[in-house]
């Protein structure tokens, strides 16, 4: 670099990384993953129509390769930062990147919440004969009445899945049960309430950890971050228990018509995001405990993970409201 070149004040030299194999490796991992998943799903649904009995190995190899590459990618960026290559301007690029990534996740959930609202407010009543197309109800789904949670699918109303082969096989037989509070016989048995308490608390604990880090209190930071991760694990565990209950005791499955579809889609993707956020925070904990990473002024890895954690928390509040309570 020519010594005479100086950036204007406030504009340090922006570090443009040298060429890197990370992107191509991540591509190989991602494509193997989705290709393997596609083969596996098609085998599952349509039978093994081609020689792809090794679909699960393609998927597994892709996942392992992808995760290893991501780990290597993050390690590279962490090292660059610790070697002082990141200017304030570059760090701001990471902040913007994370913010708009979370925004894209919000829009992803919006698709599923939109589905829930549409079904509850429009499609359901229409199927039961409301509105301009009401006369069709008597022709297509005579006897179907809509309620939320639904006690019956339109298919069941007209008698079983043999009548119309395009229908999904309504196996949702327990008519008085849903995952909402009205059907929990004792308030202390109602898992979603406990999960709400756990997840809301974990947002506070991660905030306490952040405050401690800003004051350079390492052990306090580790303690409260550890508590946050533990709460995340408990949440995922309780969610699994709830799913078991739904499948084994209530007969509520993915096949149970639109209630099961929206319930499992919304809570399932949320649970997956909790798992991801928990993993991210766990990695920050390991970095702090073992590597003594992070200072009071430089801890973006933790900060980004905590934003993500607050995001899954907010999504849960909406889930609790619209899936469980209302």
């Amino acid at each position: 670099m020519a010594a005479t070149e100086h950036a204007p004040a406030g504009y340090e030299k922006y570090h443009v990384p040298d060429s890197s194999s990370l992107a191509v490796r991540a591509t190989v991992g991602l494509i193997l993953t989705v290709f393997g998943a596609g083969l596996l799903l098609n085998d599952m649904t349509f039978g093994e129509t081609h020689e792809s009995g090794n679909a699960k190995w393609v998927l597994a190899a892709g996942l392992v390769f992808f995760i290893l590459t991501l780990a290597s990618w993050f390690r590279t960026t962490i090292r660059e930062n610790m070697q002082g290559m990141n200017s304030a301007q570059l760090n701001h690029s990471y902040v913007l990147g994370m913010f708009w990534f979370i925004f894209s996740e919000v829009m992803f959930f919006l698709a599923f919440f939109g589905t829930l609202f549409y079904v509850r407010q429009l499609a359901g009543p229409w199927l039961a004969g409301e509105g301009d197309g009401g006369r069709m109800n008597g022709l297509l789904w005579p006897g179907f009445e809509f309620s939320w949670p639904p006690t019956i699918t339109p298919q069941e109303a007209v008698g079983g899945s043999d009548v119309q082969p395009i229908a999904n096989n309504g196996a949702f037989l327990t008519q008085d049960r849903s995952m909402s509070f009205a059907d929990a016989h004792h308030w202390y048995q109602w898992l979603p309430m406990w999960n709400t308490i756990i997840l809301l608390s974990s947002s506070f604990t991660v905030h306490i950890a952040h405050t401690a880090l800003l004051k350079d209190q390492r052990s306090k930071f580790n303690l409260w971050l550890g508590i946050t991760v533990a709460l995340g694990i408990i949440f995922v565990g309780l969610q699994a228990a709830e799913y078991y209950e739904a499948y084994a005791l209530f007969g509520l499955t993915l096949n149970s018509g639109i209630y099961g579809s929206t319930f499992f889609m919304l809570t399932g993707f949320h649970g997956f995001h909790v798992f991801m956020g928990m993993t991210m925070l766990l990695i920050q904990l390991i970095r702090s405990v073992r590597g003594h990473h992070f200072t009071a002024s430089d801890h973006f890895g933790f900060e980004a993970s905590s934003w993500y954690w607050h995001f899954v928390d907010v999504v849960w509040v909406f889930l609790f409201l619209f899936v469980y309570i209302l």
Partner: protein
Amino acid sequence: MGDHHHGPAKGLSRWLFTTNHKDIGTMYLWFSFAMFILGGTFAMIIRAELFQPGMQLVEPGFFNQMTTLHGLVMVFGAIMPSFVGLANWLIPMMIGAPDMALPRMNNWSFWILPPGFLMLASTLFMEGGAPAFGWTFYAPLSTTYAAPSVTFFIFAIHVLGISSIMGSINIIATIMNMRAPGMTYMKMPLFVWTWFITAFLLVAVMPVLAGAVTMMLMDIHFGTSFFSAAGGGDPVLFQHIFWFFGHPEVYIIILPAFGVVSQVIPAFSRKPLFGYASMVYATAAIAILSFVVWAHHMYTVGMPVAGELFFMYATMLIAVPTGVKVFNWVSTMWRGSLSFETPMLFSIGFLVLFTIGGFTGLMLSIAPADFQYHDTYFVVAHFHYVMVAGAVFSMTSAVYFWLPKWTGRMYNETMGKVHFWISFVGFNVTFFPQHFVGLAGMPRRVPDYALQFADFNMMSSIGAFVYGASQIMFLYNVIATIVSGEKVSDEQVWDGAEGLEWTLPTPAPYHTFEVPPKIEATPAHG
């Protein structure tokens, strides 16, 4: 640290491992041109079958695969990546940045595209054939009645959605964080502005598309009922979600094209762009309105009347900011010192033909009239006037305009002008008659048709072959320029061109603006 003034690496590893925005832009541009040829080949098959009534060349099922893949490849493979390539090349040079904000992620955004499209194209050879449900993949055609290859189609959509989201996050971070000192938002070239707004649209709607295909995946493989009325869901729900993505998507395609034209017309009019601020506000207004007009694609599906009325009036509102833009482009040329080099010809072609496409759009927005137009060739003509004469003409204009800056060599002007006139005539011969057959009732996506449409269809097919062949001339001209074009060393290249990229040496060095330039206080726009 190593020497940062080095040039590109040698051989294949340069392209595989690059973090350079110019390399990545070049790869996007070549990839999108390859997809343009592939999608164009599908179009030629469609037009060959439709040359005469009756079934001649292909099976109806294969014809449906062709219309589906033509749409998907052109939208997601040709047009979108071509503008991302342009963004990569130009945005850092236009705002005085050393590169994109997140260069490694930039490389990843590109490299997942080719295997993603390979997966999509490979469905042609799978049992049951490629997706055949149209590029809009309405349920239940795309769920209950789809070939098994639909699973790979779904994952391909996921992959290119990931690419688009990462690419647009990168563009947002670059524009918000990497502008040179003094490059305030209202001094940015309009191409940067239109891409800035496009990137927000992408981050907002690509995840919704991902949600839609995920629900398809669940319906197909896990027995859910999102799009099945029998289970309490609704196939129309799919259309709502798809078009909540799909309408902003058409502005994602056209806004960067607006940006290109807003750079080219002032350069060859030798006048600053008329109404810069109003252009910015009009772009933002179009983007915001694009979120509340989606159901105008679904007037005939059986919505409540209140819904029809809301979406009709909201759609008509879009004509206002679009009209502002057309007015500004025309006013920029008014009393300008015009010259008609190839980029200018393509931009003027854009202006005239896009406006026709806009007017037919206005016709389609009228809900009661749309009951006649819906799913006819009138719709096909309408959106090809905005997609081809809009987006593709503008992209072609951009290539001719910036090619000398990229390569340091001048293209063959005569051949460029010939390319324009053949394209212009070929395009109109192809698509203008489709307005008439559409109004007369010829449905789209059908391999055979009634006898009274024969003449116009034959005309359409001939035009399509001419337009398709003219692209070979374009490819030849670009390659000949790179290999042996006349050298250009003038920084400005075009005497009327304005902007930071024209202050750089020609050809643009591998690394530019490693130290941000100081932007003078004089207003860049009149």
